[in-house]
């Protein structure tokens, strides 16, 4: 099946001459039909620019963009058969909820009766039927969010774009709406591209995640791939909370005798070929062990209910350990840390690129 969206060698620069800023540096990506692709990265990484280029609100400096196999360069946003949900919702303040949802259909000269039927259908799906006569100012944040999604849904587009749609909501609503978006995607099956800087949204919503930094795609993969086999230390540190622990050191010996040696300890681990490496270890893959030779001092204990995060200061740096909720430790106590030979992430110390074992 043809890709729903193809991003081929997209570059985007702003300014001229010496002041040229390259916001996107050759982005290549394919999104399969029905996929939910997340563009995630810190502010200024170019993710929103990429979304605007897909939407047609900005033009790329170089490269091609195909929706459903057809190049859409130079095609007006309205003709691309896409719908977008904005961060500020961008609801038309002087129109009722029903008119907001039906506006795009009205612009497309859909007959009134058909329009009303569609508005009611979408409103029922989003459980906002009772709000259709209100104006946006009379709605709560969560309700506005639903209307914004309804406006996008009404057109039944080929492609959905989301620009940080949940960042204006409080924590509880955000979790609720996240589930709602997932449900709607499941229901409609429409290919979606979703921009966020929130790695939890990325992990929970995406069928694939594209991690961006400085206008470069760092890694594209399923949430599982991104989480378990991050392509570099940047991705490894960006995805996951609390963030992955990094231990700088060197590999010594080979095969059965391989040891990872670092400040304040060494671990018998099967690692990459000898050299300066960084071991990345998620908090859940470091364990507290009383008799372990690698030792450190507890500096902070954070119970979250389900788990307790223990922050341990070692000679190799500060490690965060995810421990069972029943763990009883005091600040200042000496503890041992152990690492199993599974779930090790090895990176080149200099470049930060993932190393094969």
């Amino acid at each position, binding site marked *: 099946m043809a890709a729903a969206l193809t991003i081929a060698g997209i570059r985007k620069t702003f300014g001229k001459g010496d002041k040229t800023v390259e916001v996107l540096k050759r982005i290549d990506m394919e999104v399969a039909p029905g996929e939910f692709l997340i563009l995630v990265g810190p502010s200024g990484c170019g993710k929103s620019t990429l979304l605007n280029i897909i939407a047609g609100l900005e033009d790329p400096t170089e490269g091609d963009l195909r929706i459903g196999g057809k190049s859409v360069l130079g095609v007006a946003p*309205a003709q691309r058969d896409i719908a977008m949900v904005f961060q500020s919702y961008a609801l038309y*303040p002087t*129109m009722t909820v029903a008119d907001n949802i039906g506006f795009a259909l009205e*612009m497309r000269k859909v007959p009134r009766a058909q329009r009303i039927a569609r508005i009611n259908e979408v409103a029922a799906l989003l459980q906002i039927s009772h709000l259709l006569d209100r104006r946006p100012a009379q709605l709560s944040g969560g309700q506005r969010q639903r209307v914004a999604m309804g406006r996008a849904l009404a057109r039944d587009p080929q492609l959905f774009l989301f620009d940080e749609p949940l960042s204006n909501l409080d924590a509880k609503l955000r979790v609720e709406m996240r589930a709602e978006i997932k449900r709607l995607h499941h229901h409609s099956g429409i290919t979606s591209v979703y921009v966020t800087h929130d790695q939890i949204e990325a992990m929970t919503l995406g069928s694939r995640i594209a991690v961006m930094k400085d206008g470069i795609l760092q890694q594209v993969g399923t949430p599982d791939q991104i989480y378990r086999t991050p392509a570099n230390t940047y991705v490894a540190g960006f995805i996951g909370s609390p963030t992955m622990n990094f231990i700088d050191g060197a590999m010594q010996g080979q095969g059965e005798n391989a040891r990872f040696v670092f400040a304040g300890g060494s671990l018998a681990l099967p690692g990459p070929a000898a050299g300066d490496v960084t071991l990345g270890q998620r908090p859940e893959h470091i364990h507290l062990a009383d008799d372990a030779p690698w030792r450190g001092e507890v500096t902070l204990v954070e119970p979250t209910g389900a788990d307790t995060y223990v922050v341990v200061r070692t000679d190799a740096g500060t490690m965060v350990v995810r421990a069972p909720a029943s763990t009883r430790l005091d600040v200042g106590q000496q503890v041992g840390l152990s690492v199993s030979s599974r779930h090790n992430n090895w990176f080149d110390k200099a470049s930060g690129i993932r190393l094969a074992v």
Partner: protein
Amino acid sequence: MNFPSLSRFLVYAVLLLAALFFLAPLYVMVATSLKDAEQIRSGNLLSLPSAFNVDAWRLAWSSACTGVDCRGLQPYFVNSVVMTVPAVLVSTAWGAVNGYVLSMWKFRGSELLFGFLLFGVFMPFQVVLLPMSQVLGYLGLSSSLAGLILVHCIAGLAGTTLFFRNYYTAIPAELVRAARMDGAGFWRIFWRIVLPMSVPIMMVTLIWQFTNIWNDFLFGVAFSGADSKPVTVGLNNMANTSSSVKSYNVDMAAAMIAGLPTMLVYVLAGQYFVKGLTAGAVKG
């Protein structure tokens, strides 16, 4: 009397005095216009009119003489209406479109253009009198109401554009983007989304333009012909027409007639004026 109520009393006293001070001329005008010549000659400016006498108003409106023309203020008043209404509407609509373009459809040089437009707000209009009269001559609009309408549209454009542009910069750009994605074009976005949000600033601009154009004397005296003088010029000429006896009551009535429309506009739409001036960011 305790202290807070004393200070409250003082505040009211000062406010009352200020109100009296500003209302006194209005009172004198209205009172004088209702007096007959006899009572005016008796000399007490502040006395109440002895009888409710509207003869002076009737005279001022329809039969007071300017030179040999004894048709009162009526023809000038009509001229002013014919001139002001289209000039206000056109300059406001034009300013709204300008502001829309300058804030939401920026193009290369649009900021510079806006900078030049700002000059128009601060420019003394005396500067343009001569070139403007030349242009009106070329266009064949000299000494006509159409010419005056054109002049007022252009003169008011800088101000109206500034009003709308500043108001529209507070409207989030995402609104226009959303509308573009929904399939609305330049005019459709303006008409269906931006304009309905503009009611407060629209009222401000309409009132502002109405007051300016109705009260204008400079352009009226410079560019009008015998049949196209606005009411301000008509009033001036009438009051300056020398006759044996100065009819203060008629002059006062005429001045009241000339000033009534702007007063009415403020009374009817003044609340919008304040609201519009203080209207902040538009929340969606």
